[in-house]
């Protein structure tokens, strides 16, 4: 009896449970009806409600360089909207507005048709146009503030800073990596009273302004960045190369002071450039380093005591067979000390040191210097490069990797590794964002230097630095890198580029580089120059070293690092000038119109960019040229472009604009 009753109860409970299956099915079916089947109808009705919530785009935070000068700012612009439902005569309004905002009456009328509550007519008008619209005093139109991104320094640092799309979304560079920090909170506004006839009194009530995002201060110094870009451009143009990279880094902290790419682009109009021009190749591309790797090979060998500084190696008169392959030196050498192997960049000597060190230890140190792993710099799109695991090194690999073949690296990896030699053996985390600041400039978050790992001892680093001084000294491969008044430590690199068609090395395509630091006894700057496919000469010592020298000279002067070596000549004009005007004056003193005496006796157009009107006139007067000046301020555009040969009868003009 009791058991029966229990069974019966359980049956009824199960039956009740079954009802919920029906309830769930009904709910899902109803949700399907509302949200999928009738979705469009309801969504359109919601859209049509009189109250319209309009999102207001937040103003992005600014990006400053280390001298507090703005590289990216957001400016509030007026965006024009209409509330057609409140307009008496849409057609008349369209006719009045059309000529002022540069649209046809038909397009405007179409936008305002359909008795809508709200519609944007034109976004981010210039102040002149906005003013003209205001004077029309049309009922039912209004303005909302919307920010527009503006890069006051145009090309300077463009690859680092990056840019945003039309929506305030970072697409490249810092703008992309720190998008969420820079982005503020979306606001909204209510444009009209309620829809279905019910006055819920919300007009003008629920309005929340968009709040500005946080700003960033970079480690990049606009002036050093400018110097690096200018000298890189000169190096690439004079060697008729495809492109180039320059990095200036503080070796003690890992802070990047400059990171330049050539060709450059203007982020204010990034859409005009091909995508490859927008890439920050210093981190997104890898290349075969060539001889610059010898620095790290020798540092590793010395640290491991596999060789002593005074050891000498037979460099086999320029030809040596190893692992079934013959390797060559550019010049024939007999016995060379370790230092001389670096100074003359002997591949054979490097291969022999590599064999002495062995693959395990070489691989370990290359990883220690940061090769074969991302540097984790705070910029997007970084590549790892290509460093095979030592288990996959066969035959001649140990020898070729010893002089930088069969390995590929990014420029930022190379600059960071060189900084480790400069600062006494610590691989620093490279970074470009120094701190996050609020709208008033108060720091919110400060980034500090981070030692990633200790690679070699200070003693080893010192010995290697001394050897590298030989490279830039008389008789070395990089003499052109020398800077009067300072000791320079550096290394040239010349690598054949891999040919994707033949799978071998290309005969005429090279990567020429120079990397080093200065002053070598108390390093303040690590500088890397990479020139891609130079045509005039393949050698880093010829193509890249002069740019190193020029950047080092101007930057040291700008940073007021006193010379500690005897000067060969009197200090030049630029070396006594104040810091900030360096940009203009540097261009004046180094980029004059030069007389080309060898060919046809004509003149070569110099680079006037950044010059003041007075400087332009002085320069031209000296050369007896007529020049047309358009606008006032500093030069932003010129014709013909720098480097073009000109005769006194050619039309020459420069366009000037007030500096930011």
């Amino acid at each position, binding site marked *: 009896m009791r058991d029966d009753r229990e069974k019966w109860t*359980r049956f009824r409970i199960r039956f009740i449970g079954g009802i919920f299956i029906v309830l769930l099915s009904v709910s899902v079916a109803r*949700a399907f009806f509302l949200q999928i089947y009738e979705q469009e109808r*309801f*969504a359109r009705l919601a859209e049509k409600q009189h109250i319209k*919530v309009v999102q207001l785009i937040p103003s992005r935070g600014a990006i400053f360089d280390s001298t507090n000068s703005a590289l990216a700012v957001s400016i509030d612009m007026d965006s024009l909207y209409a509330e057609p439902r409140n307009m008496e005569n849409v057609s008349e309004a369209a006719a009045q507005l059309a000529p002022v905002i540069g649209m046809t009456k038909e397009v405007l009328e179409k936008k305002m048709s359909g008795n809508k509550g709200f519609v944007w007519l034109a976004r981010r008008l210039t102040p002149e146009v906005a003013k003209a619209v205001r004077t029309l005093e049309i009922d039912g139109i209004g303005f909302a503030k919307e920010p527009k991104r503006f890069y006051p320094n145009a090309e300077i640092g463009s690859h680092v800073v990056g840019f945003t799309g039309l929506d305030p979304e970072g697409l490249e560079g810092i703008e992309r990596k720190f998008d969420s920090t820079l982005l503020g909170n979306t606001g909204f506004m209510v444009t009209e009273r309620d829809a279905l006839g*019910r006055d819920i009194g919300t007009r003008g009530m*629920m309005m929340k302004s968009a709040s500005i995002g946080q700003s960033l201060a970079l480690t990049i110094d606009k002036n050093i960045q400018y110097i690096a870009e200018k000298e890189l451009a000169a190096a690439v143009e004079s060697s008729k190369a495809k492109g180039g990279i320059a990095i200036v880094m503080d070796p003690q902290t890992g802070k990047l002071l400059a990171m330049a790419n050539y060709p450059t682009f203007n982020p204010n109009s990034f859409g005009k450039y091909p995508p490859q021009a927008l890439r920050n190749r210093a981190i997104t591309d890898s290349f075969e380093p060539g001889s610059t790797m010898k620095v790290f090979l020798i540092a590793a060998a010395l640290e491991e005591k596999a060789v002593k500084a005074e050891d000498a190696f037979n460099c086999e008169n320029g030809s040596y067979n190893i692992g079934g392959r013959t390797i060559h030196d550019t010049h024939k050498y007999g016995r060379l000390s370790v230092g001389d192997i670096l100074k003359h960049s002997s591949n054979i000597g490097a291969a022999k040191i590599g064999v002495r060190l062995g693959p395990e230890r070489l691989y370990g140190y290359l990883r220690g210097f940061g090769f074969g792993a991302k540097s984790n710099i705070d910029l997007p799109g970084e590549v790892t490069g290509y460093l095979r695991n030592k288990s996959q090194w066969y035959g001649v690999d140990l020898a070729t990797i010893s002089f930088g073949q069969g390995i590929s690296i990014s420029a930022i990896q190379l600059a960071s590794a060189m900084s480790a030699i400069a600062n006494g053996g610590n691989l620093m985390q490279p970074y470009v964002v120094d701190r996050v600041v609020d709208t008033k400039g108060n720091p919110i978050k400060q980034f500090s230097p981070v030692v990633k790992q200790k690679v070699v001892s200070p003693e080893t680093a010192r010995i290697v630095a001394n050897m590298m001084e030989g490279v830039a000294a008389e008789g070395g491969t990089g003499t052109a890198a020398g800077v009067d008044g300072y000791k320079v430590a550096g290394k040239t690199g010349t690598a054949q580029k891999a040919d994707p068609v033949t799978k071998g090395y290309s005969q005429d395509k090279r990567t020429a580089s120079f990397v080093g630091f200065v002053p070598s006894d108390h390093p303040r700057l690590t500088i890397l120059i990479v020139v891609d496919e130079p045509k005039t000469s393949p050698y880093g010592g010829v193509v890249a070293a002069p740019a190193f020298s020029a950047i080092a000279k101007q930057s040291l002067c700008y940073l007021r690092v006193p010379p500690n070596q005897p000067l060969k000549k009197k200090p030049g004009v630029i070396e006594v000038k104040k810091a900030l005007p360096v940009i203009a004056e540097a261009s004046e003193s180094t980029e004059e119109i030069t007389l080309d005496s060898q060919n046809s006796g004509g003149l070569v157009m110099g680079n006037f960019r950044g010059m003041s009107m007075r400087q332009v006139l002085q320069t031209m007067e000296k050369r007896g040229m007529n020049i047309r000046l358009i606008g006032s301020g500093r030069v932003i555009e010129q014709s013909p472009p720098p480097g073009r040969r000109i005769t006194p009868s050619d039309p020459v003009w420069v366009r000037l604009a007030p500096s930011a």
Partner: protein
Amino acid sequence: MLKKLEGYDLIILTMVVVLTCFGVVMVYSASSIMAEKKFHDSFFFLKRQGLYAVLGFIIMYAAMRTDYHLWSKAAVPVLIICLVCLVLVFIPGVGGSVKGATRWIRFPGFNFQPAELAKVALIIFMAYSLDRKQEQIRWFKGLVPYMLVLMLMIGLLMIQPDMGSSMTLAGVAMVMLFAAGMRVSHVISIVLFSAPFVYYAIRHKEYRWRRITSFLNPWADPGNTGFQIIQSWLAFGTGGITGQGLGEGKQKLFYLPEAHTDFILSVVGEELGFIGTVTVAAMFFLLVHRSIRVAVYAEDSFGRFLALGIAVLIGAQAFVNIAVVMGLLPTKGLALPFISYGGSSLILSLFSIGILLNISSRMRGLP
């Protein structure tokens, strides 16, 4: 900690924890802008709901670790306390009213809604009584005590007035009596008998009648009586399949008057779309399904009726709320358990789940 959870129905526990946490998030999403405007603190409701959730979890854990037979002994005292509370709301200075309904007992810092306690108290009392006198249910005489208690509670609730809770109580009581063996003819006669009273209650109050007419044809007066349900539909429609994204809903800003309480599922529908709506419904179904299973395999009939009552209480409120916000039933003023804003409802729901979990740890006869 994990060891201590062994033997309990972990699916029920998981569903409840997930639904509650999800509710806290949705309450924030639905209320932040309104709270900013009203209280200058966009976290106003989030903070409170978060606190209620923490309190509720503690109480749920305590109930889960307490032998549920304790509630058998406590049934009558709890019922008496509950009835006292239901009377207390009408005493000036003790009770509090909002929008013409006197539903709260004021305490410093918070308000307590005895109607929520009434639901749990009635279930405990009925389980206690059915456990002892189940066989008498088959005769009409045996039903009378339950009917008297139920009518007393409903009577007090209707003075507030709180039609939603009254209907819930009546529904849960009927389901429990049906499970205990009440004759179907009795069920029908009771429903027929009470129908005129329900009709009178609705027809007599203008706003209730409007709810019915607007339910039948909301478009007849879309700006007024049909407003709420049409706006709810628009919210669901705007959501589409995947929704506008969490926090991106617009209907809650101006159109859904009870966005963070009764109509919170509309916000879910707009922000998380069909997928979000169906997920919530499916989670409630799973919760009910597992709770019914606990009732079926409970070790004794007190546990069985208790588990059933709790399962039906949560499930009925959930699916009635879902039906209301989707326009399948007239608006009632019923919250969505675990998700809608409200301390009394959340804490007492979690408490009842705690009891259910304790029953689940003592099941027998599992297949």
